[in-house]
């Protein structure tokens, strides 16, 4: 089996392990066989005696599983969006945050919390989704006329700083909402439901499909605009499509989970180290590793201080950073 094949197979096993762990671990003590049988029983034409009570089945299927699935989805979206951005900009330090996505979502969510709380809590994810896309769009138009990558990134940084300043002003002005804004900014899966999964799925499917279709074009784009163009690629159009798809993925993730850092920037690096540089491998591998990683991080976030919860963004950084350093050091040692 090729290096890429081995990496993809390992990533699938990693995702399955993350799902099973997320389903098993929690306040209610569910038997591993009962959990496995209940999950298999959901597959069409498979009927198993699960051995779980109705209450336990409800805990598994209505509380834990939506959360596990949402974490997989959000982690996968953040990671594949980060890989897409890094491919388009040929810069390994880029993620959605550098194009005004996070700042746009942050400001919009803060506006929703401060001014629109009367409309119910569901207004926050809608505002975050719209704000995330608006942040990227503002960065894109701010660089209009000179759509080279450096100008676009600098515009993204400028737009992001402006939006963050506006958010800080609102937070200082309405300090009674600080707690709610901060807890949103640090990300959480605590309110996960199948409804949220259903709402996120169409956007996730479109953005993931578009990114995967453009994986080979990202490989060509890695040669630089001139050489990519000389090979027949419309570099500008490819960049626009990939940025739009990655931004949709990041906006979908931020809408259902709040701001979760680290995944979008680090997981693509891990995918590259494990599966090689081709985006035909990096994109699906990022999707799987990002999903599995956030699934595990959420399990840690809800169990370490149980019954209280850690913000998932804290877990991704605390767990992910040492793992990333370890992978970096190992791969450097192998190369040496």
């Amino acid at each position: 089996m090729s290096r890429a094949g081995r990496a993809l197979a390992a990533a699938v096993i990693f995702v399955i392990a993350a799902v099973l762990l997320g389903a098993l671990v929690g306040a209610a003590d569910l038997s591993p066989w009962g959990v496995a049988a209940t999950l298999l029983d959901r597959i069409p034409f498979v009927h198993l005696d699960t051995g779980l009570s109705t209450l336990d089945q409800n805990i598994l299927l209505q509380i834990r599983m939506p959360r596990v699935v949402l974490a997989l989805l959000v982690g996968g979206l953040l990671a594949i969006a980060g890989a897409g951005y890094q491919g388009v900009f040929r810069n390994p330090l880029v993620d959605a945050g550098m194009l005004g996505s996070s700042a746009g979502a942050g400001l919009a969510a803060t506006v929703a919390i401060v001014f629109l709380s009367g409309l119910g809590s569901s207004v926050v994810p809608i505002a975050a989704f719209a704000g995330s896309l608006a942040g990227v769009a503002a960065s894109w138009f701010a660089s209009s006329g000179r759509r080279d990558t450096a100008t676009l990134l600098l515009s993204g940084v400028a737009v992001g700083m402006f939006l963050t300043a506006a958010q800080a002003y609102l937070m200082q002005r309405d300090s009674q909402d600080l707690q709610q804004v901060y807890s949103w900014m640090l990300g959480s899966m605590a309110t996960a439901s199948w409804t949220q999964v259903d709402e996120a799925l169409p956007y996730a499917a479109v953005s993931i499909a578009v990114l995967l279709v453009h994986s080979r074009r990202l490989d060509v784009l890695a040669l630089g605009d001139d050489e990519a163009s000389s090979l027949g690629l419309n570099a500008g159009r490819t960049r626009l499509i990939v940025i739009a798809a990655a931004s949709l993925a990041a906006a979908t993730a931020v809408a259902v989970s709040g701001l979760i850092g680290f995944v979008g920037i680090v997981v693509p690096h891990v995918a590259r180290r494990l599966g090689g540089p081709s985006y035909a491998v990096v994109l699906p591998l990022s999707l799987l590793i990002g999903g599995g990683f956030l699934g595990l991080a959420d399990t840690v976030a809800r169990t370490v201080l149980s019954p209280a919860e850690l913000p998932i963004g804290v877990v991704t950084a605390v767990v992910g950073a040492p793992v990333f350093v370890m992978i970096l050091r190992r791969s450097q040692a192998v190369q040496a």
Partner: protein
Amino acid sequence: MSSLVADDVRVVLGDGIVPVDGVSFNVESGGWLGVIGPNGAGKSTLLKALAGLLPYQGTVTLDPAPDGPKRRDLARVLAYVAQQPNLPPDVSVREYVLLGRTPYLGYLGNPGRHDREIADGALARLELEPLARRRLGTLSGGERQRVALARALAQQPRILLLDEPTSALDLGHQQQVLELVDRLRLDDGMTVVSTLHDLTAAAQYADRLVLLDRGRVASAGNPAEVLSVSRVREVYRALVSVTTDMRGRPVLSPVRPPEGLRPCRRDVDSA
């Protein structure tokens, strides 16, 4: 058969600078045109315009003509190798050369067996098979240049545009690369247009030369016609001696001006 005709090509950059102004030439099938000139003469800009990477005024006629107006149609006829090709360090030589098949792949397409055979053929042609699995970041300057040529060959072009194919190479590697290009055009009837800094190398390998000076054609013709002592002094502000080799091709050697005749900075600037 393949040829390239440029007629009154003019490139105007966004800030009003005109790096290429009214350049015309004709390269016959299987010919090698060397574009020479001092730094800033517009050589690389001209090549980018010919490759369709910069907008230009005037006309460039290719034979065979591209099948359609899309970039990929042009890329099936004409391949361009940049002065310093951007080679992603972690990509293998084989995968990089395979990217040369991009113009032949559909929107959802991936390279198939036929594409891999052509890419492997390009590797074999340039004797790169032993390096096929190596990462690009581990190659020497000469190997990098050969790999970039192999990627261009995988495009199966009829016209090859090379921007300073021997820059940053030592003498031995320069000769290897230029011999290779010569073999390709003689074997395949490929038409070559290349910019070259080394005037002797240009004279040795190109059939015809176009000497650019500040974006305009200062001289064009066979190497012996273009590379005279007086013209080199006029355009390059350099003193050279020109001898002729056994094939009648000029060989240029830089000569240090005698004491008292050396141009001081002010002489050069006001010349």
